[in-house]
């Protein structure tokens, strides 16, 4: 870790914090302009009780004051407050738990993306202009054209309905979360479109290397040289992949909102949707802040990976 890298990392961390604060304040202001709160229920509630509840959540204060209270709470205690809908539920531990879930899913998806994508791309490059190449290339375009939720539909149909029926109930996939074997399917649905993009990139960059004359000669020489060439080409192919790793991770974090929703995974994305739909403002603001920070960190990690993979890059 060079000094330059540390400085760079520090600068980025500052940027992330600023972003998170800016984002959360925008959301805070926006959300408080909306009519109605989550404190409203079907039955007629006594106005005195509603007033007491509003006071408990500081909703009766002018919103700049509310914001200040919230901000000091976050910065000093890391306390994001309490849920408006599920009384007594503290937001910070909830979000931390859900972030772990989403992070696990996200990392699995990224792994699938990179591994599947690069393998497919390499295969297509080696067997250029054969049916393998054409199939793989078309598969790649289809892969990222078909939206991830359609893949999710197909996978759910296949793994839950299909496996169960075809094996007479011997194998089944519970969609949900908690067991190790429940991770691959949603990670696959999440990562497939991006794996397709990675495949195309890998193929293109590998072709650039392989097509060169000296490589062609060396290739013709046999297995040993081929392995060396592949390794060299793969290293080269890694660069464009790393360059899109940032947007890729952001894309996966975004895509996880829908995938978590469809698979019933108790992660950050699902929380965001449910809290918006139930007007649980405190949670909405908390989730948004977490998301901004999460994306920032993910991108920072990716950017810090660059010097590791390509020593020419230095901060």
């Amino acid at each position, binding site marked *: 870790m060079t000094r330059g890298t540390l400085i760079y990392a520090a600068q980025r961390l500052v940027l992330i914090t600023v972003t998170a604060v800016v984002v959360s304040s925008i959301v805070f202001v926006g959300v408080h302009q*909306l*009519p*109605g*709160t*989550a*404190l*409203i*229920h*079907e*039955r*007629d*509630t*006594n*106005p*005195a*009780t509603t007033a007491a509840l509003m006071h408990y959540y500081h909703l009766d204060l002018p919103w700049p004051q509310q914001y200040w209270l919230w901000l000091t709470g976050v910065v000093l205690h890391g306390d994001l407050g309490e849920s408006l*809908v*599920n*009384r*007594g*539920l503290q937001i910070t531990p*909830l979000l931390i*738990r*859900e972030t772990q879930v989403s992070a696990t899913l996200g990392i699995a998806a990224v792994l699938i993306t990179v591994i599947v994508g690069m393998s497919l791309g390499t295969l297509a490059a080696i067997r250029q202009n054969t049916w393998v190449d054409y199939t793989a290339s078309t598969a790649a375009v289809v892969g990222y054209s078909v939206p991830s939720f359609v893949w999710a539909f197909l996978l*759910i149909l296949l793994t*839950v*309905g299909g496996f*169960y*029926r*075809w*094996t*007479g*109930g*011997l194998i*089944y*996939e*519970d*969609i*949900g979360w908690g067991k190790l074997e429940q991770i691959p399917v949603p990670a696959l649905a999440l990562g497939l479109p991006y794996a397709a993009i990675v495949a195309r990139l890998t193929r293109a960059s590998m072709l650039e290397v392989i097509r060169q004359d000296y490589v062609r000669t060396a290739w013709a020489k046999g297995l040993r040289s081929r392995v060396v060439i592949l390794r060299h080409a793969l290293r080269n192919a890694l660069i464009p992949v790393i360059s899109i790793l940032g947007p890729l991770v952001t894309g996966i974090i975004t895509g996880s909102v829908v995938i978590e929703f469809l*698979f*019933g995974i*108790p992660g950050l994305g*699902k*929380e965001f949707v*449910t809290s918006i*739909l*139930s*007007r649980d403002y405190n949670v909405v603001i908390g989730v948004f802040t977490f998301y901004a920070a999460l994306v920032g960190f993910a991108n920072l990690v990716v950017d810090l990976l660059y010097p590791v993979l390509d020593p020419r890059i230095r901060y």
Partner: protein
Amino acid sequence: MTRSRVSRFLAVAVGAICLVTACGPSNGGGGSELAADQTLRFNMQDDVTSLDPADVDAAVDITFLSEVFSGLYKFDNELKIVPDAADGMPQVSSDGKTWTFKLNKNVKFSNGDKVTAADWIWSWTRTLRRNHAYASNLYIITGAQDVANGAATTVSGLSAPDDYTLVAKLDAPAGYWLSQLAMPTAAEVLDRKVIEAAGEDKWTEQAATYIGTGPFKMTARTPKQSMDFEPVKDWWGGSTGALTKVHVDIGVDPAAAVQKFESGGYEIVGMANQAPGPDDVLRYKNDPTKSKLLNVYPGARTTAVGFNFVSGPFASKPGAKPGDPTNGASNTNDPGLAGRRAFSLAIDRKQLADIACAHAITCQPATGGPITIGFKGYLGENGDPWAKFDVAQAKQLLEQWDPSGTKRKGLEYRYNTSPGNDKRAQNLQAQWKQNLGVDVKLVPSDFPTLQADRKKKIVIIGRQSWGIDYDHPQDWFDNLFSCDQAKVGRGNDEAYCNPDMDKITADANTKPIDQALPEYVQAMKLLVNDVVWMTIDYGTQPYLTQSYVKGAGYNGLYDFSWLGIKILKH
């Protein structure tokens, strides 16, 4: 063949045969022996709002309260009111204003603490002090509202002559009060020691301090993820049934729940008001083996369209302040009446139930007034003259109401989004367009927004719905249709105020239900004639139950108690 080859061959053969004949967990239950694992598992889509009996207001939360806590009385599986923690039915004085309850001396909390009359007084006082939705169940007690308003700290009408006798003095005779007491919410008994030690707002967060007198106790809770319950050892009420554990997954939506059910992950889908989606219900109905697992019970929710009586083109007294009389003998000129009737006649409720409720499985067309089939106050099939489907008359009334064609423009139907509501709304829109030629724009929103606007009385046409709390028409009139509730901020969203009708219901409220019912029916007929609510359907509660699960069901208001559920060997 060698031995290993033979066994391998057999294994493959068996496997192949199994693939073809689908052996494995079958759907036919075997015998009547109990299974070794008596864990009941089911799902909830959203987490509970609150687990505190004094605060609760959602039907979903009530399911768990009824197992963890006890009231003086409860509704049994046939919806009859039977004693729970009380010993026998109450003694009511001849003027109907003094109620004496004898308490069961064996009742104790799950942590062993004994229960006395003082605990009941403390619990009810606490409920009134916190004054949430169902505190109104206790308002009829003398001095109760003073505590609710903060003017007093004790309820003057409650007293305990001895440790096991509770006496309540009421402001007026109230035939419906027993039903309110049987609701598993506000009137349940709580452990004062535990609550005061753990903290008023914190005692529900930990399983260790979540103490009640019911047959089950909570053993674990991860917010937004899961809840676990187990029976109480040495429960004062006797046996706690066959179940050894109840596990609830939170955050699982209905479609995912059904899939998990099909792979054996859940024993039941539908408990705690978490009905499977209409498409899944239809699939089960149409499949000969699956249909045995489907049970559809008449539910306790009515859905309707409410019309605004004080503003907009349907108003009966345009410009009136919410709370002013809008109907009654004095108001013979009702400019909105023809319009409301037209819109109601233009909807074929059979088609709506067919489309919105999976071929009328998850709901039934409503033709008998607001109160649901099977509950007191239902007017009988076709008891609502304006719920029939008559396009010709509807068109005629439409022209009568709006000869110039201006009133029917710019109408918006407001509702809160949910799969069932979306279907109903879209069908209403399509039918109004097809049968009346009127374009009604759909404006979905989330529930708090809709509710806020409804309470301000600014919603012109909007979705209305009510889930019955107990089997008594008072639940409807006093919460939804009285002049008192017509004021801004209260529950009569249509701002319908008919003083004549209120007189009838007020009188009926004082009498026991058998004498009161004809009066309630009379009042209901007035309501229906004015088309305050255009009732469209009565809900049903579909359940999917594994064939090896016995004793589960729904009595119209609540799930059958967990006490009676058992899991057979399968």
